[in-house]
């Protein structure tokens, strides 16, 4: 396949997305057709995109797809280019959106009678298109334009069910936070353009940027991209937006849109800011660790809503990716090329893996909502019997995110820990002990994060799928329709592939790394380090994940043979769960989600400030309780102690300023104009002289 061919297929993709949105709009009065058209076009485009990008990445096609669109607009150069980094993220977009499009065929059915599905189709296709164009943009201005479009279009998708108050509130928080983030990104870009005088990504050189300003640029980028990524403390929009958005949108936002901030950060760090100070990495590492720990603590203990639990877990995963970026920057500053390569691989691998399992889980949450009508875990239970296939797929997602070997989450977690150990090894001989201690602390925090992830997903799966149904909704649950199941199955399959065939995936990522740092992880030059190359002679990973899977299969085979031998000799009797000799257990006696996570809430009470309210109505005496009600509330500590004082101060200031400056008198306003004019004239006269 020639490069020309790739360019053509890319342009066909863009046209397909446009066709999808237009045809969906044109047929908006027939929801069924409109939905079908919108999804079939995005599915076709997504599959075409993934196939061409996989081809580009696997064949190590160094040729970059690039094209210019001639135009007469001054300063705007419609210049697109797809190098391997862009191709990697386009691959993510392609895979995730095509799966989600399959899912949407039947997921959108619940909106057919109540909403305008055609409009959704328009925004849906344009949203994906904006992400595709964002990844392909080859200059700062285009990047910013598509970044804005992406944010705006995703906002329209988030507020699709705008009749509900929570949705409105979620949308408002999202748009405010996302614009704050964009402001920082714009500021960073303006600084870059000011010093380098160029809008192009490739033409820009960092040597032109003074050190102080490049530090400032990085902080702005961290704040701006961090907001989109949902890094604590800029995460406040995320749990609401993902919870209230339709599940297919939440899946795309969490799996792909968030990753575009990683893309932006990598693009600028490797193509514009070629050098960095050590503290950039340290700062990023600390922020990442804090996000991981806080995110997962909130995920496990502050909510019973499945989608909110998943959103907090997204914060945790982005935290881990930011940890990887931190280690990468530290490695680059200290000139350790093996560590740089290892951590870059960890970042890209976890980006890929998170996109795969989180889209699966969000789609799963949507399937549960579809089948039961509720997202509250306290009302679910026993779904494994009503929705057996959905249960299997979500279970695979839970195993993947909990880093169980040989699923994909394990692979990236393993490499993250390896890069931490490697950092410690590299900093000990040079006597940089503060760094060593930092890494040890980070390792401890990531370890507890990993263990709490297990807690979270056992809670998610155990409470909603196992046991007895806790409500009539759960009792009458139905398995979702075939397209949804197919999408879930595809997602589950993709959670297994990168874990088992890790070496192939690392080869693919290596083709990206070569573009960025000119080093391959799977090269033979690492004989000094036994980390991934023990035994060195084999030149393979220390852990061969495919062989590990075969090993586990052998164990499973042997044990099931053993079990079969015993099974023949014994009887299996079905009986009630032990009820302590009283009447039969009822669903309300089961452990609840709130009860399950209580211990975490108590241990991390500083983060939650849990407040419980127990109201008991007594009957004939203190031992005859008629009614008892229990309410639990957790405080949003970051909102309350970080944002609220700031917002209150801002409101206070504006109110005072209104009386002082905006008096309503036209004379005063005219005077302001006059003053500004004088000031500007003075400024220019000084500038001229």
């Amino acid at each position, binding site marked *: 396949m020639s490069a020309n061919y790739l360019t053509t297929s890319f342009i066909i993709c863009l046209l397909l997305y446009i066709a999808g949105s237009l045809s969906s709009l044109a047929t908006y009065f027939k929801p069924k057709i409109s939905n079908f058209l919108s999804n079939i076009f995005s599915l076709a485009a997504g599959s075409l995109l993934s196939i061409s990008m996989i081809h580009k990445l696997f064949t190590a096609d160094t040729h970059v797809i690039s094209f210019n669109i001639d135009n007469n607009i001054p300063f705007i150069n419609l210049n697109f280019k797809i190098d391997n980094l862009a191709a990697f993220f386009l691959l993510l977009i392609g895979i995730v959106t095509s799966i989600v499009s399959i899912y949407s065929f039947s997921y959108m059915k619940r909106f057919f009678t109540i909403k305008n599905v055609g409009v959704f189709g328009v925004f849906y296709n344009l949203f994906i298109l904006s992400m595709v164009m964002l990844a392909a943009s080859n200059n700062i201005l285009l990047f910013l334009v598509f970044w804005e479009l992406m944010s705006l279009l995703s906002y329209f998708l988030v507020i699709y069910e705008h009749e509900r108050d929570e949705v409105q509130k979620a949308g408002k928080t999202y748009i405010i936070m996302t614009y704050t983030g964009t402001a920082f990104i714009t500021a960073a870009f303006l600084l870059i353009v000011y010093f380098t005088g160029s809008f192009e990504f490739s033409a820009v050189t960092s040597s032109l940027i003074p050190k102080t300003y490049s530090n400032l640029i990085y902080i702005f980028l961290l704040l701006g991209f961090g907001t989109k990524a949902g890094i604590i403390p800029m995460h406040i929009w995320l749990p609401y937006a993902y919870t209230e958005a339709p599940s297919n949108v939440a899946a795309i936002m969490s799996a792909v849109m968030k990753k575009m901030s990683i893309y932006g950060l990598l693009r600028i760090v490797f193509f514009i800011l070629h050098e960095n100070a050590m503290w950039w990495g340290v700062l990023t590492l600390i922020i990442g660790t804090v996000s991981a720990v806080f995110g997962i603590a909130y995920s496990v203990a502050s909510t019973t809503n499945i989608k909110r639990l998943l959103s907090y877990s997204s914060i945790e995963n982005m935290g881990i990716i930011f940890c990887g970026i931190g280690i990468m920057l530290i490695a680059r500053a200290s000139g350790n090329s093996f560590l740089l390569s290892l951590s870059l691989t960890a970042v890209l691998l976890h980006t890929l893996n998170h996109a795969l399992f989180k889209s699966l889980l969000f789609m799963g949450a949507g399937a549960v909502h579809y089948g039961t009508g509720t997202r509250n875990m306290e009302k679910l239970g026993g779904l494994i019997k009503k929705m057996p296939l959905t249960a299997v797929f979500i279970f695979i997602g839970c195993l993947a995110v909990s880093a169980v070997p040989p699923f994909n989450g394990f692979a990236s977690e393993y490499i993250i820990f390896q890069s931490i150990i490697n950092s410690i090894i590299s900093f000990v001989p040079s006597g940089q002990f503060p760094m060593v201690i930092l890494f040890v602390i980070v*390792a*401890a925090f990531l370890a507890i994060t*990993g263990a709490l992830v297990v807690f979270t997903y056992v809670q998610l*799966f155990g409470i909603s799928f*196992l046991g007895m149904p806790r409500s009539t909704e759960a009792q009458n649950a139905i398995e979702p329709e075939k397209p949804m199941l197919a999408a879930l199955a595809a997602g589950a399959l993709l959670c297994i592939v990168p874990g088992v065939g890790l070496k192939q995936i690392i080869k693919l990522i290596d083709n990206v790394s070569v573009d960025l740092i000119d080093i391959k992880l799977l090269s033979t030059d690492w004989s000094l380090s036994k980390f991934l190359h023990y035994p060195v002679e084999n030149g393979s990973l220390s852990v061969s994940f495919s062989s590990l899977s075969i090993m586990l299969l052998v*164990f499973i085979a042997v044990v099931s043979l053993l079990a079969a031998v015993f099974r023949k000799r014994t009887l299996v009797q079905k*009986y009630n769960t032990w009820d302590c000799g009283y009447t039969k257990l009822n669903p309300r006696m089961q452990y609840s989600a709130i009860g399950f996570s209580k211990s975490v809430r108590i241990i991390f009470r500083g983060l939650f400030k849990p407040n419980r309210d127990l109201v008991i109505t007594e009957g004939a005496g203190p031992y005859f309780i008629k009614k008892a009600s229990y309410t639990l509330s957790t405080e949003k500590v970051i909102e309350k102690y970080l944002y609220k004082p700031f917002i209150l101060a801002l409101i206070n200031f504006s109110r005072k300023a209104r009386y002082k400056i905006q008096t309503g008198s036209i004379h005063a306003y005219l005077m302001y104009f006059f003053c500004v004019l004088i000031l500007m004239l003075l400024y220019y006269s000084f500038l001229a002289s």
Partner: protein
Amino acid sequence: MLESILKLILQILITLLIAPFFTGVIRKMKARVQHRVGASVIQPYYDLIKLFKKDLVVSETASWIYNLAPYVYFISSVAAISCLPIVHGLTGFSFYTDLLIIVYLFVAGRIFMALAGLDTGSTFGGMGSSRELLVSALVEPALFIVIITVSARAEVASTNVPAIYEFLAGNTETAFTPMNILLSASMLMILIAESSRIPVDDPSTHLELTMVHEAMVLEYSGRHLAFIEMGSYIKQLVFMTFMANILIPVGFNVGNTFLEFGIYLVKVLVITILVGVVELNTVKFRLYSIPNFAVIALVISILGFLTGFILK
């Protein structure tokens, strides 16, 4: 290849054979101190055989997760012990024998057991799962620090077990460095927490206030329970082997495999007795005192790290 496979099979068979013995020893110690004669040290074997022969009662509420969990738990433990040869001579495969993999294999077992606890719809099960997950979450940081410390030595620079063994075989004197002593102390606490022993959990109780692991597996019977018990014995042995071979590599390189095996047995027996002594001299902690226990383990392991790498 063939040699490696034989070694692997031998390793698994030996560990399966010796694992229940150490629990028997602890029980015997406990009985003697309480002025009881106590069951024989090989009672756990009789129990297992009996359980395998018994019929099963399975809850009506339970799903396939419940039926699968004992096997997954057992397999994860066996796979973990197969990563950690009991004597240097049994080192075979190196492609999957990684300390981090051991940790994540336990994660697999833990997820299934915790889900099985919730699967029957019993209150005890949910309570046990929640507590078990909490305890393992709390000691996880200490465990990772111990692993990082033993594998970050410049001469080793790998989490791969054969690489670590290779280093230890030439440096058996590291057993007496302050680093290893501190790490061993931390590992002992992790061992106590992970194998559900007093003061973190009481394996012999069936009182709802104190149960952790037992509550989770309360519904199990027959061969399911046997596989779970066996899995727990092996899990305990994994931590003991880690301590005996990696942290206290005394007599690791005598040359004679049988002698090495003898030394290994003695070391594990000493660790067992230590666990027993702790069990006899403490009472079970409240659930919310376990964080203190875990933090102490973490601090000791970090101190171990610091003495090994910074205060050299």
